[in-house]
């Protein structure tokens, strides 16, 4: 697998750390209640097919990316800087 880092270009996945589904960007309001926080922290759609997850380019530019890829084929179809996603259409 290679990930198209928007800053560095196409790079080997060994340069990245996987940090789970991109739902981590949708942090609930502190007062949203236990159910919302349980959903956020623990429960997952866990899709078989297209997904969006967070990768940290620790051995590259240090950027957090939202990577679009397929969990069945391992095809990587795109990557966006997480800072451009957070608070947007996430």
């Amino acid at each position, binding site marked *: 697998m290679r990930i198209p880092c928007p800053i560095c270009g196409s790079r080997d*996945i060994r340069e990245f750390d*996987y940090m789970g589904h991109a739902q981590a960007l949708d942090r609930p309001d502190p007062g949203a209640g*236990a*159910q919302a926080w349980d959903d956020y922290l623990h429960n*997952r759609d*866990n899709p*078989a097919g297209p997904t969006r997850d967070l990768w940290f380019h620790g051995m590259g530019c240090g950027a957090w990316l939202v990577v679009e890829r397929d*969990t069945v084929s*391992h095809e990587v179809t795109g990557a966006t800087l997480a800072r451009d996603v957070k608070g947007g259409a996430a």
Partner: protein
Amino acid sequence: MRFSGLRVLTEGLTGNRGWRPHWRDPDPRPEYDIVIIGGGGHGLSTAYYLAREHGLSNIAVLEKGYIGGGNVGRNTTIVRANYGLPGNSEFYSHSLKLWEGLEQELNYNVMMSQRGVLNLCHSDGQRDAFARRANAMVNQGDDAILLDRAGVRRLVPYLDFDNIRFPIYGGLYHPRGGTARHDAVAWGYARGADGRGVDIVQNCEVTGIDIDNGRVTGVQTSRGAIRAKKVGIVVAGRSGQVAAMAGMRLPVESHILQAFVTEGLKPVIDHVVTFGMGHFYISQSDKGGLVFGGDLDFYASYAQRGNLPMQEHVMEAAMTLMPVIGKARVLRSWGGIMDMSPDGSPIIDRTHIDGLYLNCGWCYGGFKAVPASGNCFAHLIAQDRPHPAATRFRLDRFRTGVGLMDEEGTGAQHNLH
């Protein structure tokens, strides 16, 4: 058809013409009392114990592929009861006891081999942690022996004891642990369940779960609708998809775990040896292949195959621990889909839907749990209360924060186990 030494001898002398299929291949009936979704090791053992211990037989096991084609045929066959925390400790102890009587119970040769599991340590701190774990195991009634460096050397002289990064300080030896033939476990349970009237329906994929007024009423499948009073979900890596059919989101993320086997060699590794610091473990199959594996690839995946970086990492760990392995040639590698839970421990529980039961979250340790998982899940489904050995495997522990079983002490958070 009972197996015995005499039977094998007789068949051998008469051209092996008397063997019959070990289970029927029935079409699904329109209605059952209990439907088990998933014909893996856990699903088959659930059906077996429902019939064996609870006197139920109007049961179907629905398998989307074929028996033995999923994780039960993709693991590295290790059996052990060396957990430290209450909840896991009594459960795996229960499982190991079932393993020890399994061949007689099933009248099936599952090649249970209690060759011993040896965990290696490489620092004073790790040795202290092993001493604590060993005491927990002994307190549970299982066996544990803390070995010093010389003790490890007597057992496994072929390791590199003086590696600069990971010199071997000692080990935690668990003599009753070992390996079993994974396919035979699936086949033995399938045969045992079938013989007690359970329908094992292969090539039958569940596509929907019917719920009426908060109560499960049946399932939709690729072979038609099937009504059922109770439904158990036991689908490991596919738990997320099947639970979604009932409108549930689970605390599970599916990951890929790879394993490897070499060409057949003469006996060289007599135990199961684990090198936790290098994310590596190894044993030798009865065919002679060295069976070994490492850690997750560490990204969500349903591919049943991994990528090369983790393969390289596992090979490096192998060479670090036992340079002698460098002359062996890897024959094949494969991957299984692991249903990873946030705290690394499983779930055997009811759901908020009446009659719908859930068994998942086995992470990368499902094989050793096969007997107890089925035994306890059958108890829950039949009696609507948890088996004493599985009272803590609650689905709501993540929401409430009560009763988390985080063996590694890293926190109940995805991607840490």
